[in-house]
């Protein structure tokens, strides 16, 4: 949090502090949880982060968060069809989990409210360092979500889809998932809704030895919503995590990704596409810690910027002193399609080990005129040809996922975006 004393609270800061006072009696949690909430709201009282805080330099939350809606417990919303047919859907509707959940062999699901009431989730509520505004906001207000436990050795043949569906107002959700040793799963995190909501959502993933998980975040908030999200993961020995992030909506979006490789042989892949349109601001900020020797990571982010959209990617890779033989590569490529759009990229490598291979690259380009000419010379009109090329730019990242049902599902989401914004 910003430790400078703010001269005056913004309306958003005041609204959050007032809302906490009003909601306090309704928030679930034992003593330990309630103490964490108190600490969290204290942090917010010090002020939302501004551009003077390095990790928030490109997303001045204090300035950008200019309205905080009231809670709207009466708002109705229904679960939606999963992106992959046959998925086990766990929906959080307007911030509230379902009492009935689908039974999947090898998977135990608990409502997060219960874990807050019994206090077993309390240790996980600590914010991530002093600048963790999203963590603090979520800890202060989180009321529900799901805790998912995938048993050792379980191999799920269908994805689990976690839906966080807002209906306006505020929703604060937490989705902790533990994946046991040797287990395999595809997990889809859907973030959408139809209101001018303030959403905070924190996903926490722990991968046991040799576990393999593909986690897809599909964020399609309306252009009126503020979406503040975190994805935190620990990747154990010989475990593999592929995280795919698709940001295709929202007025103000910050998706934070904090990943630690905690066991030798751990592998992390981040693939992201940011489809930015309208007068919006979207920020993907990653902090990756290689904490042990012999771990690998690659990060590829592709951005399409149209309209007056502003985008940010911050990618920080910390290679700890003990983490020899780390291999880490990061790339961020942006297709800038309008004069009023902008994209800021900040790659950072902090390396304390001396025997590592690390690299990063960033490009900003326009549509390749030679490619455009080639397609048009085959009779494809300019608009369609541009569409094909833009789609190709991001589809490359999707096709890498190597699972046909997932690729098809994501391309369908992509097509939807192009229909709406093409």
């Amino acid at each position, binding site marked *: 949090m910003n430790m400078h004393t703010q001269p005056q609270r913004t309306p958003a800061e005041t609204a959050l502090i007032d809302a906490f006072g009003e909601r306090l009696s309704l928030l679930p949690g034992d003593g330990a949880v309630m103490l964490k909430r108190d600490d969290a709201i204290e942090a917010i009282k010090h002020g939302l982060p501004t551009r003077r805080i390095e990790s928030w330099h490109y997303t001045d939350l204090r300035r950008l968060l200019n309205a905080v809606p009231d809670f709207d417990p009466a708002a109705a919303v229904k679960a939606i069809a999963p992106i992959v047919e046959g998925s086990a859907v766990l929906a959080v509707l307007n911030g509230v989990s379902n009492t009935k959940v689908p039974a999947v062999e090898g998977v135990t699901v608990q409502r997060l409210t219960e874990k807050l009431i019994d206090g077993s989730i309390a240790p996980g509520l600590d914010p991530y360092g002093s600048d963790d505004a999203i963590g603090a906001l979520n800890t202060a207000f989180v009321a529900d979500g799901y805790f998912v436990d995938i048993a050792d050795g379980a191999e799920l043949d269908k994805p689990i889809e976690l839906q966080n569906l807002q209906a306006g107002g505020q929703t604060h959700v937490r989705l902790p998932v533990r994946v046991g040793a040797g287990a395999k799963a595809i997990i889809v995190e859907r973030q959408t809704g139809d209101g001018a909501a303030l959403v905070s959502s924190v996903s926490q993933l722990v991968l046991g030895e040799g576990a393999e998980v593909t986690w897809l975040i599909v964020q399609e908030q309306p252009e009126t919503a503020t979406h503040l999200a975190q994805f935190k993961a620990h990747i154990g020995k010989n475990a593999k995590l592929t995280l795919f992030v698709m940001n295709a909506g929202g007025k103000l979006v910050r998706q934070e990704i904090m990943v630690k490789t905690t066991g030798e042989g751990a592998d992390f892949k981040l693939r992201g596409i940011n489809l930015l349109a309208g007068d919006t601001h979207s920020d993907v900020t990653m902090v990756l810690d290689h904490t042990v020797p012999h771990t690998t990571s690659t990060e590829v982010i592709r951005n399409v910027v149209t309209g007056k959209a502003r985008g940010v990617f911050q990618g920080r890779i910390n290679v700890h002193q003990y983490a020899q033989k780390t291999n880490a590569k990061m790339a961020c490529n942006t297709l800038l399609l309008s004069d009023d759009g902008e994209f800021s990229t900040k790659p950072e490598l902090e390396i304390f080990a001396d025997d590592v291979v690390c690299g990063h690259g960033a490009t900003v380009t326009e549509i390749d005129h030679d490619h455009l*000419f080639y397609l048009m010379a085959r*009779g*494809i009109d300019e608009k369609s040809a541009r569409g094909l090329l833009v789609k*190709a730019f991001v589809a490359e990242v999707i*096709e890498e996922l190597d699972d046909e049902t997932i690729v098809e599902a994501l391309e369908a989401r992509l097509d939807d975006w192009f229909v709406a914004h093409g």
Partner: protein
Amino acid sequence: MLEIKNLHARIVDDGTEIIRGLNLTVKAGEVAAIMGPNGSGKSTLSYILAGREDYEVTEGDILYNGQSILGMDPAERATSGIFLAFQYPMEIPGVATMEFLKVAMNEQRKARGEEPLKIPEFLKRVKEAAASLSMDMAMLKRPLNVGFSGGEKKRAEILQMKLLEPKLCVLDETDSGLDIDALKIVSDGVNALRAPDRAFLVITHYQRLLEHIVPDTVHVLYKGQVIKSGDKSLALDLEANGYAGVIGEAA
């Protein structure tokens, strides 16, 4: 079919004039070869016909079936039946070749007022065309031209030409980068398309291609003008004696 009248054109970026008063007429059913030394404007001519924006026509006109095409963009020219087989086809990562072929074929059909192709019919046509050019269908599962060898790219160009059924085919050094076997396959592909209502403009450095695709007329391009026209014997003469004699005559 094609009438180029006193054409002058320059590079938009730096104003260099490349085409300087070019006249050329190609009739329906004709195969016209354009030959000429490096830098004479051969490739530029092909790009101008296809409508590339890097070149600007400053004088003269290009008539296709009696209509000027100068106001048409590349897509409009293509759907009106003009096809350029590129000397260096672009690799376009992320664009699936089959998807591209389907979109391109359906744009042609739309321009002719026809319904889009049904998928089985589309696949059948692509398979037949690929087989006739000894192309492996697996190649077409890749992104457009990505990882294709030089020869494979040229075959893919002819495949597109077959599928799009244009009326005016401009082949820009289609022989470059081809070995003898591939040259034969590509030439056979072109010859199979020869028809009374279709014309070809074959741009090449070498007589070699013209042994396979026998031209009706041969035109020598030099400094942006056609300086000599003749029949196929002109190409043999150039092969034997080089361009110097013809250039000397014209000067």
